[in-house]
């Protein structure tokens, strides 16, 4: 399994650097917002947690459509499925690698974009922690979408449509936790724990559901 993780990471570094592309997309989304809402610093800093979360959400969806489709096209999927390892574990590792190469760079880039959006240091810290806890869930839920649409020639759009509604809870609690950290009456811990719970829950359920899909979508 470490071999799989190593291969996935190697692949995403070689093939055009999906980590760079993800952060770049994040940067593009974040810098589009001030064009749309205007350069009002106060407004931007108020919106910053939401902007960062939406940017991270959209950037995390990148590359999900290739998660299994590419394996299927080059024939690797057959061999991945045939081995004695639990298929769910294989999928878990693939989703984890996807997160390491797209989600994690986003978390690391957050301070920079936070400063640009005039977010306070506390807010930046809270955003980073919630993103760290929340973005894995996107990869795990995304694995289900990727498995469902593995045979479709243009699964990319469909995956986004399928996955986005499912990750809304993560978004709700993630942004709620940041608000909780910044404004006094609102709590931080409760929504943050919800984010963690969703991630843990999906880390088991996502790969399991995806493994059932992949087993039966073989042709």
């Amino acid at each position, binding site marked *: 399994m470490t071999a799989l993780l190593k291969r996935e990471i190697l692949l995403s570094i070689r093939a*055009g650097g999906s980590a760079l592309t993800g952060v*770049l997309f994040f940067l593009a989304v974040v*810098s589009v917002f001030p064009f749309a809402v205007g*350069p009002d610093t106060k407004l*931007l800093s108020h919106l910053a947690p939401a902007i960062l979360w939406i940017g991270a959400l959209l950037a995390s969806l990148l590359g999900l459509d290739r998660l299994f489709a590419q394996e299927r096209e080059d024939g690797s999927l057959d061999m991945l499925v045939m081995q004695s390892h639990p298929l769910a574990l294989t999928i878990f590792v693939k989703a984890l690698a996807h997160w390491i190469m797209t989600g994690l760079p986003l978390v690391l880039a957050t301070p920079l974009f936070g400063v640009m959006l*005039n977010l306070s240091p506390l807010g930046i810290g809270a955003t980073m922690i919630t993103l760290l806890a929340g973005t894995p869930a996107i990869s795990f839920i995304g694995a289900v979408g990727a498995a469902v649409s593995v045979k479709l020639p243009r699964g990319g759009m469909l995956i986004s449509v399928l996955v986005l509604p499912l990750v809304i809870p993560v978004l709700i609690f993630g942004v709620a936790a940041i608000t909780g950290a910044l404004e006094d009456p609102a709590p931080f811990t409760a929504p943050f724990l919800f984010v963690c719970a969703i991630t843990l829950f999906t880390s088991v359920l996502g790969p399991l559901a995806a493994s059932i899909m992949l087993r039966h979508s073989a042709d």
Partner: protein
Amino acid sequence: MSSETIKPSIWAFANPTRFMGFANKAIPVLVIITFLLLAVGLWLSFIAPEDYQQGYTVLIMFIHVPAAWLAMMTYSVMSISAIGTIVWRHPLADVSLRSAAPLGAMFTILALATGSLWGKPMWGTWWEWDARMTSVLVLLIIYLGLIALSKAFDEPSEAALPLAVMTLTGFAIIPIIKFSVDWWNTLHQPASVSRLDKPAMGPEFLYPLLIMALAYMAIFFTLHMMAMRNEILNRRIRTMKMSAARKQSVTIPNEGAT
């Protein structure tokens, strides 16, 4: 398979070889010029008097403004290279475009970083979404996008045309970005960097600035030529490896007989 897309007639080694010879001679000269210009520029910068408004932060200007100019100039070099790729399909043009992109990104990042370090004491904020800064940020995104595009292809020669077309498309956006100062409402325009561009700058600031700009240009041309040299070597290694794979497979029957 993929090697058939390399056309030896176009990729005739005459031109790149001549370029390599030229670069090997030119680079030492360029390095010397760069260091001389930098020495003079820095010396002039540090003996420049304190600005009555900006204090010593005017020192940041001597590295900030050249970086911003170079960020634009690099893009122009890339656009000219892109025309070379599109019109003449000249392989050196693609090499030039590819090697310039990381340098352009570096200068853009430097312009943004030093601008940010200048803005904090002057305006009290690291970042402001004013037209000038945002437009430079967009330029950075374009640079990074082009770098990502250049690395996305398995076969570098296939990337040449898409890269050139994207570069030129990006260039069409640059004037739009420039005019965004007028079109896009910005709260910060009067206090923006553009204030320093006014020609009414005193000679005690103008000369160091111009020399530093020349030094930055020399840095760019030196590094660009060195990076082009690397890229040409890269491609040679690639073709050699590919022919290595073929070559030995031809000789295998003899080995197989033993």
